[in-house]
């Protein structure tokens, strides 16, 4: 996974609350393999009208926002469905960081697992940043090392779980680390078989149920 350290890029305002993952990527697009690319589906029903024509007034469609890698939005971004495709759609569209007052728990976890930074900022700071972007500004610097966002002459702190920060800074994935603990895992599960035989579906007393 690509490490995330510091990013200077254009930011796009999305002044909406509760942008759920059904909006980030409608369910009808999720049967495709990831290798096909998910960027075109990002916020599809908000970006395009019924005839699949881009809505000119939607922030991500405005020419001055083309190439934005940062999204600034209101509370509860990424709530709802656990679909990791929401993170794929953002990343494949070129978004590396979302700034919002709060995020859906499953979404933020999926984001971090894919190298996308979900950065939490106070509601007032987000409103100020939205106003600054609305005034025609664009370029921001997101520094994960110091957890500071710089926009124009102003600097705001943002918050991120320290474990996730380390993971993003290093581009780590969990799996290799877990596999290094294989012996401890096996021993724990062996003991658990004796401690909670009812929790296992592989024992000799396993049910002869259909399935």
């Amino acid at each position, binding site marked *: 996974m690509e490490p995330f350290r510091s990013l200077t890029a254009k930011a796009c305002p999305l002044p909406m609350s*509760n942008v*759920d993952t059904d*909006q980030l990527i409608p369910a009808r697009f999720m049967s495709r393999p990831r290798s096909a690319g998910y960027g075109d589906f990002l916020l599809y029903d908000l970006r395009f009208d019924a005839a699949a024509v881009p809505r000119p007034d939607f922030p991500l469609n405005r020419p001055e926002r083309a190439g934005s890698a940062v999204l600034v939005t209101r509370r*509860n971004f990424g709530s709802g469905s*656990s679909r990791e495709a929401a993170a794929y759609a953002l990343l494949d569209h070129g978004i590396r960081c979302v700034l919002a007052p709060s995020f859906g728990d499953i979404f933020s976890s999926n984001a971090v697992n894919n190298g996308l930074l979900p950065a939490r900022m106070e509601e007032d700071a987000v409103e100020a940043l939205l106003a600054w972007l609305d005034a025609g500004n664009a370029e921001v610097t997101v520094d994960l090392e110091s957890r500071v966002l710089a926009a124009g002459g102003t600097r705001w702190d943002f918050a991120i779980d320290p474990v996730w920060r380390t993971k993003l800074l290093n581009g780590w994935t969990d799996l290799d680390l*877990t596999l290094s603990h294989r012996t401890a895992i096996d021993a724990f*599960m062996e003991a658990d078989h004796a401690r909670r035989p*009812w929790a296992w579906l592989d024992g000799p007393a396993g049910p002869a149920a*259909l399935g």
Partner: protein
Amino acid sequence: MAGNGPRTLFDKVWEAHVILTREDGQALLQIDRHFFHEGSHHAFNQLRARGARVARPSQNIGVADHYVPTRGRGNAIADDTIRRMVQQLSDNAADHGLRLFGLDSPAQGIVHVVGPEQGLTLPGLTVVCGDSHTSTHGALGALAFGIGASEVAHVLTTQTLWQRRPKRMRIAVEGSTGPGIAAKDIALSIIARIGTDGAQGHAVEYAGSAIRALSVEGRLTLCNLSIESGARSGMVAPDATTLDFLRGRPFAPREDAFDRAAEAWLALPGDPGAEFDREVVLDGAEIAPIVTWGVSPEDALPVTATLPDPDRAADPARAAQIREGLDYMGLHAGQRIADIVVDRVFIGSCTNSRIEDLRAAAAVLSGRRARIPGLVSPGSTLVKRQAEEEGLDRIFTAAGLEWVESGCSMCVGMNGDLVGAGERCASTTNRNFKGRQGKGARTHLMSPAMAAAAAVTGHLTDVRPLLEGRA
């Protein structure tokens, strides 16, 4: 951290699964049950890319639900994409030797109905699935939560998951609820009270006399909707109601083994004096039949109310949300909710498709005609069979509703069961998000009895007068 002091239900289940804790506080948890479905294909592809195999095949169970057709079972699936998605699930299960409740299984159904119904979900287990409504399984006292595809791949490969310990929140509903009030009304009232992000970062335990009085089916509905208040998991402490539900289920332990397990399960409820990071209390007597009017589950009001006015909202973000909701839903400020005319109903989904849900809807529809079309999709093939034995299917069809097979169906529309653009649906599902039931579809969430009432009158309706003199 709980230490040696009094512990909550959540603490006990969490601590029994911690294999190791990293310096930074992340815990490696043993996962007892992983349910997968058609949508889990990203994770299986990740395994394929690494050449990895499933570590503990017995603990991973597949269920065909998200894409399955609800009509024409037994025939080949006409739509290429849908056929491929269902086939891919079977192939992945076969490739790794995993148990599958496939399209043709007599016990097929929605994963969050099948797990508890089969006794695969038990108290004290950790349960995960690549679906946010996995919180449902917490109704039996399991710690159950939805995960993303990378986490699914991690569970398949190791039967473990790294997690940060969430905070603990207790939501108590005290007293008793009035007649005609369902678990759905309790859940939507909670979400309206605390907001869709109200429980973010928390593991919720539902408690209080109104919760204890719920059947397991009601508790499943309640825990199902935990994610709509932002909580990844919601739990109810196991009790005699839980044991009665589980005894004799196909995958539950049997005879002496059940009694030994039950002893462990009954030790799970929180100790007296165990502390929560946050507590919320609702009065059960104040809960009314409730419906959503906007595009977030927190936009919920009693059916007797009128719609809010964005110009009167104190906060600009809230005003914007009200305006956006009214606009998308084709409604106006000050309108009476009971005057909202509905185009169709859907009774089904992992939230409300169990036998008690179908009985509640049938009690309203019995001897009456629906004024609008509607779809009834039972939560599992076994629920369908039981409903037919009880004659419920004939009540639905006599009323003019369509009685179909089991699956996620019109809750998410992946199988082609869609609400048309601009159409308004009274739905027993879990999300009134824009486009959730189909592009441009307008969803009002409510209980099965309330959906049945809307079918009978053709508009959003207080079900209580329709239940007078009935069960």
